[in-house]
C-alpha cells in the first residue's frame, strides 16, 4: 500500500486495529462493490457497504463453511434478506473462494451467475434467493426449525436491512422464531439509519437529509419483548462484531432464545462521497469518483 494511496482515507490508516486482515478484506470488498456496480452500470452501493464489515467478519471468522463444498449439509447457512445488497455478498463470496474474483465483472450482465439479487440456483455459496424485501427471516426460521427437527447442528444467520424491518412479514418471523425457541438462529440488522427514500429530517422540506426510519420507536425494547436475545454493536468495529457473534453462538447453549444483533452502521461506509447519504443507495460512480474510491480504499492500479 503506497503512502499516496492512503491519502483521503476518512479513518486514520495508522489507527490501531486488532484486525488488520479483516480491515483490509473490507477495503477490498468495498472496492469490488463500487467498481463492479460502476462497470455494470447498475446496482446498489450504500447497503452493501454498510454491511461489509459485518459480512467479512462472519464469512472469514465465524461461519463454519467450506467454499469447495457449498452444499455440505452441515454448513452454517446465511440468508441475505436485504437482497439488493447482493454485490456485497458476491464480493465476500469471491474473496472467500466460492468463485473467481474475475467473475464479479459479470454482475448484472445477461447470462450471468451473479444476478441483481441473490439466486440460490445460480451462485455457489448463496443459500436462499432474495430480492423482494422482508422474506429472508421467515426462510431463516424454516431453515433453523428444520435443523431442530433433524437434530442438525448448523446455525442460520440472516442479514436484514433497517428499512426492510418495515415489512410485516419480518414481524411474523420474529414472532415465530421465539415461539419455536430457535436459539440456532441469528438475525443481524444493518442499522444504517437510511433506506432508499425514507422520511426527510424535516417533514415539509426535503433537503437530502433523512430521519432514521426507527427513530420514533425503541427497537431494543420491542425485540426483547418479542422474546429475542438482543445485542447492540458498532457494525464497523470488528472487536464489537466478533464479540456479538461469539455471544450469539454461546447464547445457543445457555438460552432457548434466538439472537438479534442490532448493528449500528453508516450507509455507504468507507468512501467519503457515499458515506451517510441515502443518495448513494444505488448509483454509478463517475471516473473521478472511482479514482477517489481507489485512493480511499488503498487499491493498487493492478487490482482489477
Amino acid at each position, binding site marked *: 500500500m503506497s503512502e499516496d494511496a492512503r491519502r483521503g482515507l476518512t479513518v486514520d490508516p495508522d489507527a490501531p486495529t486488532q484486525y488488520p486482515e479483516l480491515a483490509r478484506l473490507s477495503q477490498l470488498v468495498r472496492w469490488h462493490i463500487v467498481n463492479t456496480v460502476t462497470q455494470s452500470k447498475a446496482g446498489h452501493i450504500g447497503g452493501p457497504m454498510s454491511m461489509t464489515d459485518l459480512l467479512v467478519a462472519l464469512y472469514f471468522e465465524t461461519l463454519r463453511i467450506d467454499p469447495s463444498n457449498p452444499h455440505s449439509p452441515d454448513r452454517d447457512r446465511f440468508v441475505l434478506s436485504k437482497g439488493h445488497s447482493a454485490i456485497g455478498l458476491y464480493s465476500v463470496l469471491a474473496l472467500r473462494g466460492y468463485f473467481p474474483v474475475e467473475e464479479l465483472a459479470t454482475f448484472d450482465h445477461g447470462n450471468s451467475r451473479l444476478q441483481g439479487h441473490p439466486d440460490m*440456483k445460480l451462485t455457489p455459496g448463496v443459500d436462499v434467493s432474495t*430480492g*423482494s424485501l422482508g422474506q429472508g427471516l*421467515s426462510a431463516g426460521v*424454516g431453515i433453523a426449525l*428444520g435443523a431442530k427437527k433433524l437434530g442438525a447442528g448448523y446455525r442460520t444467520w440472516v442479514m436484514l436491512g433497517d428499512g426492510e424491518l418495515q415489512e410485516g412479514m419480518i414481524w411474523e*418471523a420474529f414472532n*415465530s422464531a421465539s415461539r419455536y425457541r430457535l436459539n440456532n438462529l441469528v438475525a443481524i440488522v444493518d442499522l444504517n439509519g437510511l433506506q432508499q427514500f425514507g422520511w426527510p429530517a424535516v417533514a415539509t422540506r426535503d433537503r437530502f437529509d433523512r430521519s432514521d426510519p426507527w427513530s420514533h420507536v425503541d427497537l431494543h425494547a420491542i425485540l426483547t419483548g418479542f422474546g429475542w436475545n438482543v445485542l447492540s454493536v458498532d457494525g464497523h468495529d470488528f472487536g464489537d462484531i466478533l464479540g456479538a457473534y461469539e455471544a450469539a453462538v454461546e447464547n445457543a447453549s445457555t438460552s432457548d432464545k434466538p439472537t438479534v444483533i442490532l448493528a449500528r452502521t453508516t450507509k455507504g461506509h468507507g468512501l467519503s462521497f457515499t458515506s451517510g447519504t441515502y443518495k448513494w443507495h444505488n448509483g454509478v460512480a463517475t471516473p473521478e469518483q472511482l479514482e477517489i474510491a481507489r485512493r480511499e480504499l488503498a487499491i493498487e492500479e493492478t487490482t482489477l
Partner: protein
Amino acid sequence: MRAQRDVWGDTLVEIGAVDPSIVIVDGDLANSTKADKFAAAYPDRFVEVGIAEQNMVGIAFGLTTAGFRPWLSTFGVFLTHRALDPIRMLVSQTQAPVRVAGAYSGLLNGSSGKTHQDIEDLAIMRAMPNMTVLAPVDEIETAEVTRWASQHDGPVYVRLARDAVRQVLPDDYTFKLGEVITLRPGGVIALVSTGAQSSRVYEAAEILDEIGIHARVIHVPTIKPLHVPSLMEAVDGARIVITVEEHSIIGGLGGLVSETLAERFHSPRVARMGLQDAWSESGPNDFLLDKYGLSPKRVAQLVREYLNAPEATTRQIVGGNA
C-alpha cells in the same frame, strides 16, 4: 361421498406413515382444512404458524432446504393473494417442493362470502412459471392428486373444495399429469370443466340428455401443464366447446381452453361459463350454485340458452365497469 377436505387430510395421514419428509405448515386453520388429522397423528411434523400466511410460505421453503416436503394448510384465497409474493420468490423461482393446498376454493366455503371465495386462483397460479396447477374433481381423484403432489419434486398448487361432490371417476382411477378425462363421450357439444365443478357439469349433462341435448363432458384436472393433444383429442369433432368453472370466466380454465384452441386452425368456438367477473356473496351452497349459474340445473339451463342464441350472450364489453 366424502368431503374433499377429509380426503386430503386422511390421505396425508396415510402418506405421512411411510414418508417422513411430509410436514404440514398450518395457518391456524387445521380444524377447517382437516390438517388436524395429520397434527394428531404426527405432532412433530405439524408446524403451526398462526395467522401469518406469508411467514407460512417462508417457513415451508426453509424446511425444504432441510429435506422436508411441506404442504401448506389454510384457506387457498389467502395463499394465492396474501402470500403470493413469497410463493413467487421462495417457491416458484427456487422450484422448492412446497405444496400449496388451496383449501375452501371457489364459492362454497361455508357462507364466508366474497373475501374468502377464491374465484381467481387458477388465473393467478396459472400465470406463475414453474407452477403445477391441479384441480381434482371427486374423492377418488383428490386422494390421487394428494398422493401425486406429495411425491412431486417441485412447486404444486392444488385447488381443493371444502365439501363433497358425487363421484364421477372409477375407484381404480390413476391420475396422469396433463391428461384430460372424458367423463361422457360423444356429441358435438363439449362441456369442459375442472375441480369439483366437473361433477356438477356431469349431472348437468344428464339433465340436458333428458331434453334431448347430448353433451360430452371433459374434465381437466391439470390446469398446468396441460397435455394439449389430450385436450384436442377430447374435443375432436365437437362444434362448440363450453367451459364451466367455479371461478371467474377470466384467465382460468376458460382462459386455458381459449388460448389453446385459438392457437389452432378450425377450432370449435369456445363459450365460457362461471363467475361473470363479479364478486359473489355469503349464502348456503345451493343458493350460491343456483344464483351464480353453477348448479347442475342452472348449467343445463345456461347451456341450452346459449345454444339457442349464441350471439346474444357473446360479450360486447369484457370487464364490468366500462
